[in-house]
């Protein structure tokens, strides 16, 4: 819309016509208090805190509902306005318990801030306050009724934002109260978004209530470890006996690809870190066949010795390496480099959850065809083929709902099952098994293919009318099934793609070349790219994939197997004892079924305890920062470097740290006034590749190499280090389409639910408690 000019507090401002005054002011740095207004939700105008004076208008106006227009003149602070706001506060405080000293929100409460600012310190009310006991609505959500200021943010967030509609408002006037859909409990997605938007401490979180105060925590922004959407999450950490403990997870500054959003897993799923089952000491199988705790030195020396023995006795290709979708890009890169250049093997793989090789193969040679999450969230039209975002990709579901609601985007859903997002869809078709293939043929002009698919013709016509489109494919699309819709899309201008996967760094594991036949960036094993020169001497015939490796190991065909963060025994149902002739080393946080079979188990740091980068389903690379700390564990990165070191490898060859003259760095001398907690100078140094990489254990030391050798990882470092995402460009790869399409995709689709992320969620007591709550409700409903 055209810009209009208006005056606020004597300043001339410009904004698109129709912008709400409150937003226009906030953009210009003029703070207008608001309780009920919440960006992105419908207007409520219930609290009257945002009142301002508009010239020529007899009464104070609510800035949250006033659209700006040319020539308007506003005053946002004056004695009259302060008095009005103070009166509002007095009313709100009329029955407010003022239990700030024990309230979770104390210190970050909007009511507290406003009372402080407008000084409603004395009350005209002398009546006794009405007390109500706190209610537990679910293991995740608690409600403290007297603290509620009836702003309705929670009701709108749950309904409009989440499309769950689990909260309502009952009664009226002074008896009005927020009510959960189950009468005395919540039957909902337990996302905690209602808690997050509550401006006061009326809705509190089961995992955080009465635990800490905001100023007692350090707030570390990192990435959620539970799914491949990669929400940015702020972990509130505090010193504990054995390191730093996580007390809270939220997205405090509402930045990043997820803005406000976190699902139940991201918000409540962090106590696996503290789980009693957590491994904190290396274990080595003793002569009696029992796993026995030992020191890191002994364990590393033992593994290194055995690896060397195997290498010299059996030579190249005698060992296998299985990586994970939960480890960082740096770790995955290092793992495959370690496998290829130190262990001299191409038997490398990971638990593939989506066919990114085909995805990349098809995008070669084109640019701007991969959709980042932000692009999806703003796309005018989206075609969702398969998948079940609401259950398996909560952030994607949120982004699609918001896009439809706020931008009037048109969502087209084709699925073989009923999915919740059909409610937001402009059109949807329900297909039978095998129907996708027909639908795509129909989209490409084969009229006959659409026969017998109800609604498909209209669906096709609507899609044909879309000028630009994002096509999102569920993980079930792989190989030829993925190629078909992508080829259709590539034949049209302005179509972008995304492929869904499972595992926080599933995309990164694939991008970093945890494949028996593909190098980082999907480059072939043989070639004359820089990576081939640098990896000179590695075997160049394709290795065995995940299943083949396990099979080979089971029949004595592999002498050593290094499993990092995967659980092939559980995933493939391998029988106990099957690998007794293979030297099995497992790096993991927990004693998984595979770890229980290992000769050596090395306890690792979880994603919340290390630094690095991860790449989500949509190719957005984000920084992971060490938040918690656990005595006894080490990041996989450090373990690999130590292993290589103990094997006599020059670690500088693996991790480029320091330089030829030894380590030199800016140790802070040049910082001057920039030094301090928010060390912007450090960000700048890091962004420009000038940060001191003094240690081979610094995972960021290898990021330079990734950027150098992996064509699609040309990262915007300044953004990355400042805590934003930086998007990869898949089309930049150097791969051969045909060779990618002819290989076996090896994808094993996983379908994690809303409270499920496999290993980690199983060991998260908060998520297990939520699950039990949900199961009880499901039983009661039957």
């Amino acid at each position: 819309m055209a810009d209009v000019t208006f005056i606020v507090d004597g300043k001339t401002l410009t904004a698109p016509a129709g912008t709400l005054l409150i937003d226009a002011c906030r953009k210009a740095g003029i703070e207008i208090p608001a309780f009920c207004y919440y960006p992105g939700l419908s207007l409520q105008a219930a609290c009257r805190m945002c009142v301002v004076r508009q010239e020529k208008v007899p009464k104070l106006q609510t800035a949250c509902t006033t659209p700006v227009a040319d020539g308007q003149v506003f005053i946002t602070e004056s004695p009259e306005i302060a008095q009005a706001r103070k009166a509002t506060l007095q009313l709100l405080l009329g029955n407010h318990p003022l239990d700030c000293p024990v309230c979770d929100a104390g210190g970050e409460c909007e009511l507290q801030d406003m009372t402080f600012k407008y000084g409603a310190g004395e009350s005209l009310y002398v009546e006794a306050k009405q007390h109500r006991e706190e209610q537990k609505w679910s293991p995740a959500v608690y409600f403290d009724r007297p603290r509620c200021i009836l702003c309705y943010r929670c009701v709108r967030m749950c309904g409009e934002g989440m499309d769950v509609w689990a909260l309502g408002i009952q009664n009226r006037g002074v008896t009005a109260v927020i009510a959960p859909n189950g009468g005395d409990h919540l039957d909902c997605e337990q996302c905690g978004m209602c808690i997050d938007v509550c401006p006061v401490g009326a809705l509190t979180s089961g995992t955080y209530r009465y635990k800490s105060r905001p100023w007692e925590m350090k707030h570390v922004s990192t990435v959620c470890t539970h799914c491949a959407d990669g929400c940015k999450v702020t972990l509130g950490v505090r010193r504990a006996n054995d390191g730093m403990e996580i007390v809270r997870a939220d997205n405090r500054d509402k930045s990043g690809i997820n803005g406000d959003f976190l699902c139940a897993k991201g918000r409540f799923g962090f106590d696996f870190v503290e789980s009693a089952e957590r491994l904190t000491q290396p274990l080595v199988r003793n002569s009696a066949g029992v796993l026995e705790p030992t020191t890191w030195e002994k364990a590393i020396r033992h593994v290194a010795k055995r690896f060397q023995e195997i290498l010299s006795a059996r030579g190249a290709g005698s060992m296998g390496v299985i990586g994970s979708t939960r480890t960082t890009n740096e770790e995955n890169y290092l793992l495959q480099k370690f496998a290829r250049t130190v262990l001299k093997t191409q038997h490398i793989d990971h638990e593939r959850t989506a066919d990114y090789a085909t995805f990349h193969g098809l995008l070669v040679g084109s640019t701007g065809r991969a959709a980042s999450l932000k692009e999806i969230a703003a796309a005018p039209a989206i075609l969702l083929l398969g998948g079940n975002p609401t259950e398996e990709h909560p952030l994607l579901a949120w982004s699609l709902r918001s896009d439809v609601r706020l931008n009037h985007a048109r969502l087209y859903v084709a699925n073989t099952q009923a999915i919740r997002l059909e409610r937001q869809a402009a059109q949807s078709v329900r297909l039978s098994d095998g129907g996708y293939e027909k639908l795509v043929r129909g989209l490409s002009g084969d009229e006959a293919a659409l026969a017998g698919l109800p609604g498909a013709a209209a669906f096709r016509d609507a899609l044909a009318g879309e000028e630009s489109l994002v096509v999102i494919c569920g993980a079930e699309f792989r190989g030829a099934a993925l190629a078909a819709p992508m080829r259709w899309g590539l034949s049209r201008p302005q179509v972008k793609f995304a492929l869904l996967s499972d595992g926080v760094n599933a995309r990164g594991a694939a991008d970093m070349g945890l494949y028996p036949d593909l190098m980082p960036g999907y480059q072939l094993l043989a070639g004359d790219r820089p990576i081939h020169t640098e990896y000179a001497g590695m075997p160049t015939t394709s290795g065995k994939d995940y299943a083949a490796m396990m099979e080979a190991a089971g029949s004595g065909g592999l002498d050593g197997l290094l499993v990092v963060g995967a659980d092939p025994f559980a995933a493939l149902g391998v029988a106990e004892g099957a690998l007794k002739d293979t030297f099995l080393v497992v790096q993991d946080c927990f004693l998984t079924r595979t770890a229980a079979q290992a000769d050596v188990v090395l306890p690792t740091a979880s994603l919340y305890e290390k630094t690095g980068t991860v790449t989500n389903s949509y190719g957005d690379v984000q920084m992971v920062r060490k938040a918690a700390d656990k005595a006894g564990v080490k990041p996989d990165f450090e373990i690999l470097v130590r292993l290589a070191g103990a094997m006599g490898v020059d670690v500088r060859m693996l991790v480029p740290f320091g330089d030829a003259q030894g380590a030199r760095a800016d140790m802070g001398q040049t910082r001057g006034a920039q030094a301090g907690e928010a060390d912007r100078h450090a960000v700048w140094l890091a962004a420009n590749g000038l940060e001191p990489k003094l240690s081979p254990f610094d995972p960021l030391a290898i990021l330079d190499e990734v950027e150098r050798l992996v064509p699609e990882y040309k990262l915007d470092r300044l953004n990355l280090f400042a805590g934003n995402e930086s998007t990869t460009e898949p089309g930049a790869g150097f791969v051969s389409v045909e060779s990618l399409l002819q290989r076996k995709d090896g994808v094993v689709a996983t379908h994690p639910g809303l409270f499920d992320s496999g290993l980690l969620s199983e060991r998260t007591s908060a998520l297990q408690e939520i699950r039990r709550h949900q199961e009880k409700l499901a039983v009661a409903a039957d």
Partner: protein
Amino acid sequence: MSVETMSIFSPELSARFDELVTRYPMKRSALIPMLLYAQDEVGYLSDAVIDEIARRIGITPLDVRNVATYYSMLRFKPAGKFNVQVCTNISCMLRGGYKIFDRFQERLGIGHKGVTADGLFSLEEVECIGACCWAPAIQVNYDFHDELTEEQVDAILEQYRSQNAGGR
């Protein structure tokens, strides 16, 4: 699809509801009349009533409660067979509404929103019932009694008692 096969309402009311939801561009516009009619038939808005109405208009039971709880004339517990609503709003108050209300309280031995032990009467203090010209006024179920004096209270109660005994 709006025709409920397993209705808790009488066939007449059920048919009435089937028709009612077709009258408005949006089904949920029929919510308030449905709640009133259902209350008249069942006596109060039970969970079963709320669930069926929600189903009939395609909203959640929570949505129904959000609306229903706003209105003081809708109730969630059974009232007496005869629900005595005494107006104490301005006109009635000026002309002795509170005296009438007090007399009912005393005679029935119950207060505002109370129900007698035999379930015959319930009592409510209500806002203006639109009979100001003949204040003070009361309403018993859908019947009005106006220009009342305290003395008439006993007679009114007696009238309903005998009506009940008469089997009506």
